[in-house]
């Protein structure tokens, strides 16, 4: 049986406009055979949650370089879990101090991919996690 393509939605909550990372990642994951929905920037947690529900994705990727991750990422995950009972893989990136990682994981973030991460590392992680979940 042919395996379904992995669907990932990538979004930037809050006001940070640095999108080099998310755009490069979106292209890289497409090249790796995934279906990528890049929602864009300046989004609220509510907007992201609605899109995740509508797009029926497997993976949600959040990015913030402005330091707002501790308030925006948990909020986004919380709202998604409130409106959908589906199990999603949550990953994130940006400028995220090491000391914040355990807390983010408590909120449901499976992995934090900071500056210097290779695209292959992210795609391998996603593939392994989604296969396990299926």
């Amino acid at each position: 049986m042919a395996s379904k393509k992995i669907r990932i939605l990538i979004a930037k909550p809050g006001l940070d406009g640095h999108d080099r990372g998310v755009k490069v990642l979106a292209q890289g994951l497409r090249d790796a055979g995934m279906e990528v929905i890049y929602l864009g920037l300046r989004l609220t947690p509510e907007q992201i949650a609605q899109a995740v529900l509508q797009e029926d994705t497997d993976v949600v990727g959040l990015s913030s370089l402005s330091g707002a991750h501790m308030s925006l990422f948990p909020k986004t995950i919380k709202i998604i879990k409130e409106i959908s009972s589906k199990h999603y893989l949550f990953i994130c990136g940006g400028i995220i101090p090491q000391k914040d990682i355990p807390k983010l994981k408590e909120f449901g973030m499976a992995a934090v991919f900071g500056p210097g991460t290779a695209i292959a590392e992210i795609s391998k992680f996603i593939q392994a996690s989604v296969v396990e979940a299926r």
Partner: protein
Amino acid sequence: MEEVSERKKEFRTTVDGIVVKNVYTPDDLKGNEQDVSLPGEYPFTRHIRSNGYRSRLWTMRQYAGFATVQETNARYKYLYKQGNTGFSVALHLPTQIGYDSTHPMSAGEVGRCGVAIDSLQDMEELWDGISLAEISTSLTINATAPIILAMYIAAAENQGAKQSQLAGTVQNDVLKEYIARNTYIFDPETSMRLTTDVCQYCAQNLPKWNSISICGYHMRDAGATAIQEAAFALANGITYVQAMKNRGMAVDSFAPRFTFIVACNINFLEEVAKLRAMRRAWAKIMKERFDAQDPRSMMFRFHVQNDGFTSTAQQPLNNIIRTTISALACVMGGCQSLATTSYDEALALPSEEAARIALRTQQIIAYESGVADVTDPLGGSYFIEWLTNEIEDGINKYISTIDEMGGAMEAVKKGYIQREIQRSAYDYQKAVDFGEQVVVGINNFTIEEDLKIQLHEIGENVEEKQIERLKKLKRGRDNEKVGHALNKVSQVARSNDNIMPALIEVVKTYATVGEISDALRDVFGEYREPSIA
């Protein structure tokens, strides 16, 4: 003679950069129009001033701003004590995008990557104990540049200073926001109107103020190559000059106060050549395309910062070396103002220690290395001259293409510039991921790390404090006066008059950034750019 095999099949300056040979000779310069100009002579390839840094060093202008105005004020005083010779203000994202700290979109962002400025009250306290008549300040603000500049002017006037005394720069470059930085509010045409309002007002009232800092930096940081950064910055510059001419202003009345901000990447030689090429290219553009008469209109004056993207989160102390190499290129490339990136760039806002080391880097270069004592010391090197010519050619090719599209604004609307940058960014990532481009600490010479450096932290209650402060301000001010002044802003916005006088009046009533921006939003609407990814 024995052929020695080389480390690579092909050597390029950077990923997607220029192919370079083993060695360069006078033959490589044949066939090109000989540029034998001296520093201070058109086309200013070697330096805009005839005696370079021998009379005056570049301005050491570290970028700073975080949390509350009190904390940022303390950092400014610290930097000044450590030898910073120019101020450079980082504003938090809500201010940049025209939201008050109380706005729902500001949640989590207050004071995070810049200082929170909601009203004139914040601007005044930001400069507590610092005389605005005596310093030079760079304001990194774009969509809300008119408002923030108005606040700076009002704060200065409240200190007793005259507008004619104020020295500094306002970034005010919205075109690059659509391309690479994304803090725009309005559509491109509205933004150009506001941008040129600022430029016109400054040309007529603030003789020591640079009305715009046309950016290459952010496009480079977004992935552009050296040639792309240079070309797109100059192309945007052309658009701004043309827009000012369209308003009926003579080129020499405003162009001397047009400046640029570029990034300095890690390929030392390419960056020196790039800066020389940009000086030559801009001078020719101003003379040949715009018929400038005043030499100052033709001078490519710029601030530069080491591209933050080249800093690694891994083994961060290595970034001190990267900054040093890059800063050396900036100085040997003849910059007017320099911000050295701190070693913790990829991890957090600069700690005091990291900011101090970054300043020391400049001071050691200035006072110990000797490179500031000879102007354009690399001029005459066969390779540097060849590379300067190559980059100038590359700039001209891109500018031609953009001209054919109808100019930078059209190119931006079509997504051309964005796609070029995107392609370079992706090529770079692939080169690093596949090991073709070695980045020490990332894909080679890596270690298992337990980072023990002290990172700068933003206090947890900054947002709460700022919100309370803003609410108190709104309760205490004359809200009727605020209302009238906001109406005046709307009125002027709808007309063809310059928005600045009405903005200076409204900020003096302690109207907030959000209130003023909303008044403009009501007139102009908000722009939502289609995602190009």
